[in-house]
């Protein structure tokens, strides 16, 4: 059992090392290609959607309560 576990541990460590090397290589590529301001643009979209969703609930109520003009 102990030997088997050691074997598993070695295998796991080997995989981990391979993944780390791969991640390091990928990390280098992504850092070079990343542009400067993508996060700010995403924030603006989220805020607009939040306002739109808030207004959406009020709009549905307005339509329900004024069935003669909508």
């Amino acid at each position, binding site marked *: 059992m102990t030997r088997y576990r050691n074997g598993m541990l070695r295998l796991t460590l080997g995989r981990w090392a391979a993944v780390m090397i791969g991640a390091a290589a990928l990390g280098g590529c992504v850092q070079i290609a990343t542009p400067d301001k993508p996060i700010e643009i995403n924030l603006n979209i989220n805020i607009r959607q939040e*306002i739109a969703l808030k207004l959406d609930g009020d*709009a549905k109520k*307005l339509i329900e309560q004024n*069935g*003669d*003009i909508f």
Partner: protein
Amino acid sequence: MLKQWKPAGWAMAAIAATATFALAVPSAMAQRDPAYEAARSGGQIGEQPDGYLGFVSSPTPAVRDMVNDINIKRKAAYTSGAPAGSTVAQFAFITGCNLIAKTRPGEKYKGPDGQWLTRDAGAPVRDPNCP
């Protein structure tokens, strides 16, 4: 004495039920005027993305007056109903998104490009900013 009270209880319950019904009816009756409904289903008028009604074809004086009146009432509703932090135009636009979504097959609505479209069984073409 007890027997005399029972009918009175029944009567009170009946009056209460009638009163509740009478109160519920006016809100349910706040529906479209038949002339408005006819102009919509007839394709003479349609919903615009800005939350107001528009003329698909040149209207009769009666239809024109009716639509102008409804649009004035809509503007008042948007003005009084716009939540803090939003403009009347924003609230009208979001309501317009809902109104276009609620159009029935055969009714007209204005697409994001300004063209009048006829609602079919599928989803309407709406502005990408609609929620």
